[in-house]
Each structure stands twice: as structure tokens, then as C-alpha cells.
């Protein structure tokens, strides 16, 4: 029974999407409740999965492996390990939170909720699929609802942002698919099973080229500079909830793929480029932070900070050390929660101020004390205040990276100062000063607190007791690194 959990978690949203489709569109309340119940059940199931995880087993658990397309050796192969569970949990959490946070959306509710719930299928599936084709299917399923979410409910330049997001990621994913096909053919195994392909021998040149194809696919998703140009547009124009999912989940699909596929399936293709990835990671950190610093739009600032933070994840992955990789996986989780929260707070501020222009938002502390408090808390978490979740991940990354790339670690550490710089400066700009009397600063409502507070608690718990996750991540990453034999 327990082994079907990944399947149940992935396809529960499909069931609820169908429920939503058959509900008449004027029954707005029913639709909202259906969406909340569906994503809520997924969250509960993912927590059950987290609790049921066997820490002593570094391999895959709860695996279901049945033939899917035997003709070409594709399997329905779903399983989880210590790397995927934190990401599944954060996906389930953020989607549920997004539904609650979107309660007040009243434009085309049925389509909105349907898209949100449908999107969850792909996001969850990616983290649990261990068959290349299955993985690809989930990877692509996310694009369509996300296009709609940005294009229908987004800001003024939503159409441009949505199609740009779609085209960029689609180009990336077709190159990724070509890489997958190359590995499939040259392995001679006739299977898309990732774990069997990991064992297969593929000519090194093919492996390198295949990885380059996949690299573009992953890098667009992460995004790594210079593949990032879609992100500021998409994140800024997207409605709050879609921004949360983009930053919280979709970016992790890219970094997760680097770990799962890059390190685990085609390490021979990734290793020759590992320094390049580390360098691009550092560039992303610094570039993202510098861009964030000059933004006048609060949401764009958070978007660029995402690029910067994902740089740490890439650096940690590229270090190929246990600490670095643990830090990277942990940072994926923390960044999902923290940046998700940053976007949510930006959403709250925008709902009230009707602007995201940093210069026009003043005196948040006086106007809406609780929102201001949440913003400060989340900012601190984001730049890595010890005892909050953001610290552990980045700290581990830096520890793990230092012995390998000394200078780059130094530059990355300097990036933390920049991060602190723009976040603290932003706190100063928006929280202090005299509030604009024209703006109706209602403080956070009970509904808003109902999802903010639990997320804050999670940030504190993970910050204080990261073992909750690292106990799960460490054996898996250790086994992974042993298998690939370090640098």
C-alpha cells in the first residue's frame, strides 16, 4: 500500500482537476473548496510519505515499477529517496498555500483553480519519476497551466511574459529530450529507466554532448545566467500564486534535475563541465544580487534574488562534496519556502498599496505591522540569518565548496553581503518612513496569517533543527557521491 503513495500523491490533483471541470463555473465557493481539499489531501499524503520514509535506506523507496511502453522500454517507475521527499513536501505545501492565498481571486475562478491543481500533477511527478520519458512528460505538463496562469491572471505585460516563458522552457526541454534520446541509444540498453541507464556505458563524447543538451533544458529552468532572461518577466507579470509556484517549485525542477540526472544518471557527461557550472553558479549569485539591488519594483527584486539564491544551489551541486550537496538540497527546500513567502508578502503589499514601486511604499511598519514583521522575518531568513532555514543551506554549500573552489567560495560568500545589503536596504525603504495616507493599510487578515504563520514556523524549525531534513538527505547524497566517485 505504502509503495503507491507517490502515485496517489501525483494523481490526486488530476482527480480534483476533473471534479473542478465538472463543477458549474458559478459555484465559486465549491470550486475553491474542492481545490483546497485536493491540494490539502496531497499535502497530508506527502507528510505521511515523509513520516513513512525509512532513514536507514539510502536507495529508492516506495517504488512502483510497471511496464508502460514496453516497445521502447519506457516504464511507469515512481519512487522517492532523500532528495525527492523534501521537494515533494515543499511542492505540496506551496500549492496548498497558493490555493488559500488565492481565495480572493474572483476572475475566472474555475479556470484558475483548475489550472493550479492541474499544474501540481507535473510538479509532483517530476520529483518522483525515475523513467526518462515519464520525467519528460511531467516536466512538460507544467508548462501549459503555467502559461495560462501567467497569461490570464498576470500583470500588464502578461502575454509577452507568458509566451516568453513557454518558448524558453520549451526550447530547453526539446534539447533535453534530444540528450535523453542520445543516452538512450548509445547505452544500447533499450530502456528509459534512469537507474539502469546510470549503470550503462555510453561513449564519453556522446555523454558529454547529451549532457550539454540536457544542461540547456535544466539551466533554463533553474535559471542559470545567461539563460535567465525569461524569469524577471515571468515572475513579475505572474499573479502572486503563480510566482510562488514558479520560484518555489519550478526552479527546483531544474536544480533537482541536475542532481538526479546530471549527477546520478550521466555523471560522466556532467563532470567535465563541473567547473563551468560552478562558475556560472557564482556569476548567477553575484549578477542576481547586483540586479536585485537596483530594482525599483519589489517583485522584480525578489525575482532577481531567486536567481542569486539558485546560484548557491548550483555551486553546492558543483562542489560534489557531501556538505555542498546536502546544502544544495536543503537550500532547494528552504528557498522554496522562503521565496514563496517573499512573493506572498509582495502580493499582500500590492493588494493594499496597488503598487509595487519601492519608492512609493513607505511606513509599512506603521501601516501594517504584522505584514511588515513577516517581511522582515522572511528577509532575514532569505539572506541567511542563523537559526532560520536559509542559513543552514547556504552555510553547508559554502563549507562544502570551500575545499574545492576556494576563490569562488569567497566570491559567493561576498554575495551574501550583497543579499543582506539589498534586503536590509529594502526593509529600510518600505517598512520605515511615513505611510502614504492614500493607501488603506489593512493589516494581515486571519486567512493570510493562517498560511504565513505555519510557513514561518517551518522556517524556524528547519533553521534550528535541520536534522529533520538532513537526516533524510545525507544518506542519499552520500550514497550518490560514493557511486559517482567524487571529482
Amino acid at each position, binding site marked *: 500500500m505504502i509503495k503507491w503513495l507517490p502515485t496517489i500523491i501525483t494523481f490526486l490533483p488530476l482527480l480534483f482537476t476533473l471534479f473542478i471541470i465538472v463543477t458549474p463555473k458559478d459555484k465559486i465557493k465549491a470550486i475553491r473548496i474542492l481545490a483546497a481539499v485536493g491540494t490539502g489531501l496531497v499535502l497530508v499524503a506527502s507528510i505521511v510519505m515523509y513520516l513513512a520514509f525509512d532513514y536507514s535506506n539510502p536507495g529508492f523507496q516506495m517504488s512502483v515499477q510497471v511496464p*508502460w511502453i514496453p*516497445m521502447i522500454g519506457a516504464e511507469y517507475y515512481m519512487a522517492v529517496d532523500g532528495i525527492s521527499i523534501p521537494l515533494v513536501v515543499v511542492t505540496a505545501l506551496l500549492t496548498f498555500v497558493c490555493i488559500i492565498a488565492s481565495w480572493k481571486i474572483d476572475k475566472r475562478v474555475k479556470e484558475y483553480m483548475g489550472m493550479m491543481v492541474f499544474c501540481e500533477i507535473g510538479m509532483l511527478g517530476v520529483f518522483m519519476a525515475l523513467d526518462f520519458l515519464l520525467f519528460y512528460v511531467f516536466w512538460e505538463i507544467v508548462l501549459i497551466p503555467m*502559461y495560462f496562469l501567467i497569461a490570464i491572471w498576470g500583470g500588464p505585460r502578461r502575454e509577452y511574459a507568458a*509566451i516568453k516563458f513557454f*518558448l524558453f522552457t*520549451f526550447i530547453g526541454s526539446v534539447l533535453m529530450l534530444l540528450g535523453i*534520446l542520445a543516452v538512450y541509444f548509445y547505452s544500447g540498453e533499450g530502456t528509459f529507466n534512469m537507474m539502469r541507464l546510470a549503470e550503462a556505458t555510453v561513449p564519453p563524447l556522446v555523454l558529454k554532448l547529451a549532457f550539454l543538451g540536457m544542461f540547456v533544458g535544466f539551466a533554463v529552468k533553474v535559471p542559470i545566467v545567461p539563460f535567465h532572461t525569461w524569469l524577471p518577466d515571468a515572475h513579475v507579470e505572474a499573479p502572486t500564486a503563480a510566482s510562488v509556484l514558479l520560484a518555489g517549485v519550478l526552479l527546483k525542477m531544474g536544480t533537482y534535475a541536475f542532481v538526479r540526472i546530471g549527477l546520478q544518471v550521466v555523471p560522466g557527461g556532467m563532470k567535465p563541465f563541473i567547473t563551468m557550472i560552478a562558475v556560472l553558479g557564482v556569476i548567477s549569485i553575484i549578477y542576481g544580487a547586483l540586479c536585485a539591488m537596483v530594482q525599483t519594483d519589489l517583485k522584480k527584486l525578489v525575482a532577481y534574488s531567486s536567481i542569486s539564491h539558485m546560484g548557491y544551489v548550483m555551486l553546492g551541486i558543483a562542489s560534489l562534496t557531501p556538505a555542498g550537496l546536502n546544502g544544495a538540497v536543503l537550500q532547494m527546500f528552504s528557498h522554496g519556502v522562503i521565496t514563496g513567502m517573499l512573493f506572498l508578502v509582495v502580493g499582500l503589499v500590492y493588494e493594499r498599496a496597488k503598487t509595487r514601486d519601492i519608492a512609493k511604499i513607505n511606513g509599512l511598519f506603521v501601516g501594517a505591522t504584522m505584514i511588515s514583521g513577516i517581511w522582515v522575518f522572511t528577509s532575514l531568513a532569505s539572506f541567511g540569518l542563523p537559526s532560520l532555514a536559509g542559513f543552514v543551506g547556504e552555510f553547508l554549500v559554502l563549507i562544502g565548496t570551500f575545499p574545492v573552489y576556494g576563490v569562488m567560495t569567497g566570491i559567493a560568500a561576498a554575495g551574501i553581503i550583497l543579499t543582506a545589503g539589498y534586503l536590509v536596504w529594502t526593509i529600510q525603504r518600505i517598512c520605515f518612513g511615513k505611510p502614504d495616507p492614500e493607501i488603506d493599510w489593512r493589516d494581515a487578515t486571519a486567512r493570510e496569517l493562517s498560511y504565513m504563520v505555519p510557513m514561518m514556523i517551518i522556517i524556524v524549525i528547519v533553521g534550528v533543527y535541520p536534522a529533520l531534513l538532513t537526516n533524510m538527505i545525507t544518506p542519499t547524497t552520500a550514497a550518490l557521491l560514493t557511486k559517482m566517485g567524487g571529482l
Partner: protein
Amino acid sequence: MLALPKVNYAFLAPELLLIFLALMVLIADLFWWRGRTRVLGWLSVASLIAAGVVALPLVGKTGSTLANALLVDPFAVFFKMVFLASTALIIVVSMDYLARYKLPSSGEYYVLLLFATVGMMFMAASSDLIMIYVGLELTSISSYILAGYHKTDARSNESVLKYFILGLIASGIMLYGFTFIYGFTGQTELGAIANALRGESASLAVIVGVMFAIAGFAFKVASVPFHQWVPDVYEGAPTPITAFLSVAPKAAAFAALARILFLAFPDFAGYWKMIFILLAIASMFIGNLMAIPQKNIKRMLAYSSIAHAGYIMVAFAAANERAIAGLLIYIVAYVLMNIGAFVVVLAVAHQRGGGEELTDFNGLSKRSPFLALSMVVFLVALTGLPPTAGFWGKLWIFLAAVDKGLWWLALIGFLNSVISLYYYVNVIRHMYLFEPDTEEALSTPATFSGVIWITVLATLLIGVYPPILTDVAETVARVFGGLG
């Protein structure tokens, strides 16, 4: 005294029955149910179903009749079923169309469609150049008349004249190519041609013959550079006929091409593969790029169908068993998604009695969520995104290409689906992002919704669980066993 070949009538049963029933429909139209569009329509659908039932015993059989001119093998039966099913779907949606636009002589319309189907069935089953040509002409001549069915519409008249003249030239060129082949080998039967050519060095005459034949077929499948007729004819023809032309005769032409090239000219593969690589690249790029600026959805789908012919021709460039399986999968997927998309176009124009511009799709999601969502499925499938049948068609063909070392051609194919995404999404944009010019809900005739349901569900079902199609296709492709 000429010895007449023995005829195995069981092998000919579906075609003979369909011809007989088509004539019955014609007679019924003449004497009993003059102008009874629906009665005659359902009668025609029943004829197609009957032919399909008669074809069932042929599943899995292998043999030939009419002095080897007509083959019965899984490949032929597969295509026969595809043709019967697609014509049936087209006739179902034609009934409301004919009634709506008060087109005369509905009986003839159906009968022509049925005859075209017979022609296509012969094309897929023939292993003789003459037989293939006869099948092709039966299909083509029916298509010319059907494409010009809007007799009083000047635009339609112009386009059909273009279609007719260019089509005749194409047929002529093809026939001319056939004469070279016959002149050199003294044979018209495909296997005998291959035998006659075995061990021969590639003579210029044969290569010219094959190239002319390919040129003729390239016209029929709407491949660049023989594509100029496509947008005009697709725009001018009645929409159900456009849907028909965009799938069935194309599929038949591909089937005949596969027969001719794989059975008669396997030793010349080096030459024709190169031609197909060029045709495929040109069709994909020009089809997709020209589709982008189109404002009329039928024209847009016309260019997109050129691009799809390009994807399919990658299968000929790869030319192995997997590629043929890919061809079959792609054709079924294409039939489903393209007929589906055209029926949505039909449904949108139905209420107003016209309107096939992109702007007519504005706000469709509000006027008819069902049509809009179905169209999204079809467009996503046409783009080749999972989980739809369109994805597996592309994947299979490109798998074969990568397998044969044509990874760069696969890359071009994949990049072309990115280009196509742009204009397909543009339709989605019109349906979901723009405000409709009228809030009035769009009512869709039951026949349209029925066909849309069938095609949507099949597209998604194959998308989620492809073995229902791919296993069949792989089995059928073994007919061409021993290919490189």
C-alpha cells in the same frame, strides 16, 4: 487467349462492398430520399462501418490477389481502417454543415467521399504502379469536385481550378516517372521491379523515374516546394472537406510512397533518403514560418499541415522499421488532432454561418468552454507536447532518426515544434485572453460535439497510454521487415 488471374474476393470484400453501398447511396438519393441530408449521411456512415466490419477478418492475414497487384497485409488493413474511420468522422460532421449552408446534392457529396475512400484503400493496398495510380486518381478526382463544392463562391472556384490544374500536372509528372521505371525494368509490380533492379548500378533513368514519382506524391502530401495550392484550397473548400483533404489523402499518399520506395527501390535508398531530408527540412521550416503571420485559421492550419508533412517525411529519411511505425503512429495522431481542430473551426463558424478568422475565436473560452478546452488539447497535440498522441508520433519518428544517426534532423524537427508552438499558442491566446465580441453562448450541434469528444478522448488516451497504438504500429511495421 489471355489467362485471367484468379481473384480472391474475400481480399477485395471491403472495397467491393463500399463501392456497392456507395452506389446504393447514390440511387437512394436519386429515387427515395432526394435531399434528405441526414438520412443519406447516416447511410454513408453505416456503409463505412459495414466495410470496416468486412475488413475485420483480414486483420493479421497476409496474401495477395489480382495477380499480385493487390496486397492484403497488416499495413494495408491498418490504413484501410484509418481511412474508413476518418471518412466516417468527416461525414458525421458534414451533415450539419451541408444543412447549414444549404449545399445542394448532398447525396453526391457523400458518394464522392466514399469513392475517394475506396481510392485510398486501393492506394494503401496496391503493389502495382498502375493500381496505385488508379487509386490515386479516384481519390484526386473526387477531391477536386469536393473542394469546389461551394459552387457559387468565387474564391472557392478559383482555388479549385488551381488545385485541379496543378493536381493534373502532378499526376502527369508522377505517371511520367512511372513510365521511366517501367521502361527500364519492364515491370509495374513493385516486387518485380525490385528484382529487376537487383544488382544493377543506379541508372539515371531509374533515378529520374523515382524522383518524378516522389515529386508527384510530394504534391499530394503538400510538401514544400509543391505546396502553393494548399493554403488557397484549404481556405476555399468546405471546412469538412478541408479536414478530409488535410488528413486522409495525405495518409494514403504516404502509404503508397512507403510501398513504392520500400518494396521497389530499397537499393536506391541512398538517393531517395537524401531527397526526403531536403523535403522534410523545407516543409517544416516553410510550413511553420508561413503559419505564423496567418490571420485565417484555415490558412494557418493549411501551413501547419505542410509542416506536419515535413515531420512525417523525416520517417522516410530514417527509413527503418521504427520509422515506419512512427509514420503510422504519427498519421493516426495527426488524423485525430487535425480532424478535431477542424471540427472546432467548423463549430465556431457554424452559428454565424461563417467566420474563420482568428478574431472569430476571441473569447471562445467564455462562449463555449468545451470547444475552447478541446481546441487547447488539439493544439497542444499538434505542437507535440505530452501527454497527447502528437507527442508520441513525433517521438517515434525522431527516435528512428536519431537511431539512424540523423540526430541533427531530429534537432531541426524539435526546434520546429518550438516554432509551431508560437502560432498554436496564438490561437489559445485568442480563445482565452481576448474578449468575445458577443457574450452569446455558442451552441454546438451534437454531431460536432460527438466527433470532438471522440477525437479528444482518443488523443489523450493514446497520449497517456501509447501502447494501444504503438504496439499495433510496431507490429504492422514488421511488414517491411529487413529494412536497414
